[in-house]
């Protein structure tokens, strides 16, 4: 691995994980990842962290909240001429 490659990957990593890279950037990041163990581990680590962040929010609505929201129906009224 070259330092320069890792710098580039550093730059690309977040967007690589967010799936917002252009095709060219994606190819560049992928080819670098294939040859760089350090970046590959980082990538896996970041991916796992994101999964965990997502898992931290699986909590469902408290019981009763939906009923309270249902009661708010009609607040917008109807415009009469």
């Amino acid at each position, binding site marked *: 691995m070259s330092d320069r490659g890792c710098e580039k990957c*550093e730059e690309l*990593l*977040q967007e690589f994980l*967010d799936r*917002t890279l252009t095709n060219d950037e994606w190819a560049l990041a992928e080819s670098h990842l294939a040859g760089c163990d350090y970046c590959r*581990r*980082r990538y*896996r*680590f*970041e991916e*796992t*962290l*994101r999964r*965990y*962040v*997502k*898992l*931290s*929010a*699986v*909590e*469902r*609505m*408290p019981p009763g*909240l*939906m009923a*309270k*929201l*249902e009661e*708010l*129906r*009609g*607040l*917008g009224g*109807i*415009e*009469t*001429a």
Partner: protein
Amino acid sequence: MQPPVTRYGSPVSEADSATEARRIAQEARDRARFEDEALALADQVYRVARRLVGSREEAEDLVQEAYARAFRSWRSYTPGTNMRAWLLRILTNLNVDRGRRIQRTPQTQPLEESDYYLANKVASAAGEDALDQDQVVERMSQDSIVKALADIQPQFRDVVVLVDIGDFTYADAAQILDIPIGTVMSRLHRGRRALKQKLAEETMA
């Protein structure tokens, strides 16, 4: 401004009143459809709200206020656009307006640490092999993530929560928070770093 229309002395014709009745019925249907669509998203809206604020009670209040405002201003929603983003925009505005967020003192540690901060710290504590993701992850508990998220500065947390938990695109998050897309990206980057830093502090404590 138009002069007030008086209907006294000029009785509405039957055709007019039938048209008016149809319009009212149509509006009621549109409103009900809007409400159905919004309520179907309540679980997802709550999930994001829950991580934006500190407690379940606050999240519950915030979601109720957001729905009350959304239902009142349903006419300003453009059908066919992203309703979840529209609802979250109302919710995040309310959250800022009401000053609910706990303002933290600025980070004492600079955020310029490597993104690898947490992994490196775990590795140095347990030897090089511990860099393996499973072992890093073993040290992170659901609680530690929740706590770390609650501990980062609100403007960073908003973006991380919207993108990483709410699955919003950068563009949606920019619209919801009314900030440029470049700001979303930089806050996201800094927010994730801050999150890792907090996690490192917690899991290594």
